[in-house]
């Protein structure tokens, strides 16, 4: 039950994108097609899960014992960047079309503050190893949900008569705002 609450908390209540407003760059950049957004969501989920696990190990077996917690940010960035490189190579090999449609946003996962935020929050909340991994998965799934929701809405928008000044990013931001308002409804659930 405790794991489930952490998971649900990360997915809905404290959704990284729509409630905590982290990682908005890919939210606008890759939410034009559902297919690409699912791919992006999977990539981010993978990076978050692995980063959570590795960051926890580094935090508790290297940073804390040697009393060098001030290097937390550097160490976590190292982990995240490596994981993103790995995902990039993997995608280039396995799904070149997805690799190309994600374009610059794939390497930009490195600087996605949602992932860094997840790693720092995980330490702040003093989660155990398993809790951290669950938290990482939850954060990734939450990110994916937000991205896919927005992408689905934006796909439908292609058929709508949007006023020219609002076309593209303008209307996307309005939708994201409304989605965010909707997600605040989950507050107090956990």
């Amino acid at each position, binding site marked *: 039950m405790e794991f489930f609450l952490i998971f649900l908390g990360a997915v809905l209540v404290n959704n990284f994108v729509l409630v905590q407003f982290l990682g908005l760059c890919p939210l606008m950049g890759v939410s034009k097609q559902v297919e690409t957004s699912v791919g992006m969501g999977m990539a981010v989920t993978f990076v978050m899960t692995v980063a959570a696990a590795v960051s926890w190990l*580094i935090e508790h077996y*290297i940073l804390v014992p*040697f*009393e*060098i917690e001030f*290097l937390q940010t*550097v*160490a976590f960035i*190292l*982990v995240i960047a*490596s994981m993103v*490189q*790995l995902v990039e*190579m*993997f995608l*280039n*090999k396995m799904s*070149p079309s997805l690799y190309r449609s994600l374009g610059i946003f794939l390497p930009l996962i490195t600087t996605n503050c949602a992932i860094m935020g997840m790693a720092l929050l995980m330490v702040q909340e003093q989660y155990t190893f398993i809790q951290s991994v669950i938290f990482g998965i939850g954060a990734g799934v939450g990110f994916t949900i937000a991205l896919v929701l927005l992408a689905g809405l934006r796909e439908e928008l292609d058929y709508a008569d949007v*006023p*020219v*000044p609002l076309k593209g990013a303008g209307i996307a931001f309005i939708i994201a705002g409304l989605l965010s308002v909707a997600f605040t409804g989950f507050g107090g659930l956990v």
Partner: protein
Amino acid sequence: MSTTVISLISMGALGAVFAVGLAIASKKFHVEVDPLVESLEEALPGINCGACGFAGCRAFAEGLAQGKAAPDGCPVGGVETAKAVAEILGVEATAKQRRVAQVLCKGGEEQSASRAEFVGPQDCRIAHLTQSGSKGCIYGCIGCGTCVESCRFDAMAMNDNRLPVVYEDNCTACGACVRVCPRNINVLVDERQGVHIRCRSLAKAKQTRQVCSVGCIACRRCEKECPVDAITVTDNLARIDYDKCINCRRCVKVCPMGTIDEQEGKPVIKKQRAS
């Protein structure tokens, strides 16, 4: 041990571990890149304008390598790029006739009076959506210069009459101005064609006369005068079939409104008459 040394060692060790991991992974996930695509991409202009119909120069290069795109498919690079691409692909270069943009409206501020004042962002697309703009003619050029802004090759400018002019030497027929114009004033035409009916008005003769002094009134004189049947009048507007037009300029002389324009330096073309 001091904190400095520990920090250096631990971070260095972490970095080394990840580096080794990534090195192994890069060997495992190594992807062969087609050298043909690379060399093709280098031969292209590389501005990713999308005028070829592909999503950028890279996609076009891949299309070329797979035989999905024609070597002369890049309108921006023109003949030179087509030659370079054909050479890489080892096929015969087929020179495509160069096209340039033409502005099909002659009614600037002097010829077509405003019927209202438009206050707002100076963008034709916005003006067009706002009660069809401020100009008397609802088919003609709005004159905010959105096409000029869209041109990435310095091939367009607004003149004093608030009409866009095309510098044909710079025009690459990328089609940006054609797509951006809310009234479809700009068209891409074979550069040899020198006679143009510069009007898009579908309004009846009387209405056109009221709002513009150079608009087409569909009098059909040009249609009758044309020796090669290149001009047809439909929906209150004379249109020219550039496949047939031979630049004889007889229509220019008979047009009572001065709508039909001739460009200098474009001689009569010999064409086989379509039967």
